[in-house]
């Protein structure tokens, strides 16, 4: 009798632990959202990817349609090669364009994909041609300062 009640209590404890783990895996983490959906991989070359990381979302019109699978450096073209895993259920025209965007002012970076007009859709292994690099804040500031410095000089030389 003693034995069976202990069994019940320990079983209860183990099941509670399993339920807690399941709760952590499903409710607080993203186990379901990314392992079930089938994806197809396409690649793109960027001049500068800024702070883009693996697993960053790929969004179209604000909806997550895929994730960044891999980031490599192409030492022939000196560009960054980004592999995107797009969800099978979303199809995009072959001339769609990619942009690296930032969520919020200081948020993480993600890839925005804008649909093109081609009638043929992207297939696995395709390379997207139209890409726009990440905005690098330092470059923006230095260009702004350079313009500021150049502007008065132009005016004086014009007069």
């Amino acid at each position: 009798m003693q034995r069976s009640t202990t069994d019940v209590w320990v079983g209860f404890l183990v099941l509670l632990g399993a339920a807690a783990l399941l709760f952590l895996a499903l409710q607080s983490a993203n186990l379901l959202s990314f392992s079930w959906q089938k994806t197809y991989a396409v690649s793109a070359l960027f001049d500068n990817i800024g702070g883009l990381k693996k697993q960053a979302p790929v969004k179209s019109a604000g909806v997550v349609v895929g994730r960044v699978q891999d980031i490599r450096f192409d030492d022939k073209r000196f560009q960054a090669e980004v592999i995107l895993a797009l969800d099978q259920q979303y199809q995009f025209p072959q001339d769609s364009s990619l942009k690296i965007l930032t969520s919020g002012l200081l948020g993480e970076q993600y890839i925005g994909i804008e649909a093109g007009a081609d009638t043929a859709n992207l297939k696995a292994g395709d390379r997207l041609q139209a890409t726009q690099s990440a905005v690098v804040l330092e470059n923006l500031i230095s260009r702004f300062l350079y313009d500021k410095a150049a502007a008065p000089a132009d005016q004086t030389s014009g007069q």
Partner: protein
Amino acid sequence: MMNFIARVGGATRAWLADVGHATALFVRLILLAPACLRRFGLVRDHMHFLGNYSLAIISVSGLFVGFVLALQGYNTLQRFGSASALGLLVALSLVRELGPVISALLFTGRAGTSLTAEIGLMKAGEQLSAMEMMAIDPVQRILAPRFWAGVLVMPILGAIFSAVGIIGGWLVGVVMIGVDAGSFWGQMRDGVDVWADVGNGVIKTLVFGFTVSFIALRQGFEAQPTPDGVARATTRTVVMASLTVLALDFVLTALMFKL
């Protein structure tokens, strides 16, 4: 001068012998795993004692840690206008750090001390020697089931702590303060990774389970067989296990979450 050198030498030798004994005991306990599995009844009894009776303190502490995390986190996040990331903050801090560490510290206080005192008193009452006289190995019959019960129970308690803590954070953050429930869970799901965060948290609790159970059992096993010796061993269990857990946590975090 010679005396001083001799004392340094003696201390070093004693320390090395101590490390050697501890390692030998640890290896024996690990190797006794199949024997324990064969007589799982013993392990189960101790899982009941170590686990079920720690459930109340673990879940209540988890709940309150979740409450406080949500209150404090909301105060800070709201200054930057990002109160919607509250769920992410609560979940990440619980799953990665607070869940494993606090549950290990509570486990030390609640279960580790009782292990040390029990084994120490058995030794003081010469029960262990009596067993040896009957050709029963006390390490196999007494220590190993308790050790494996502690190792098995610790991840369960850690997971319960984190889950209850997240529910506590939800109660304060969403129900009481009124953070949007959708962004609370949504940001959490976006930011918490199953393997990198939840999985590493479970690995941490498993390591802490080995650490705390082993330290508690060894302190009891090596205690001076007097009331004073048992009292000292119990104190040493708490101090050593807590410090080891915190130090190991730093090392594990550095290894797991390198950026």
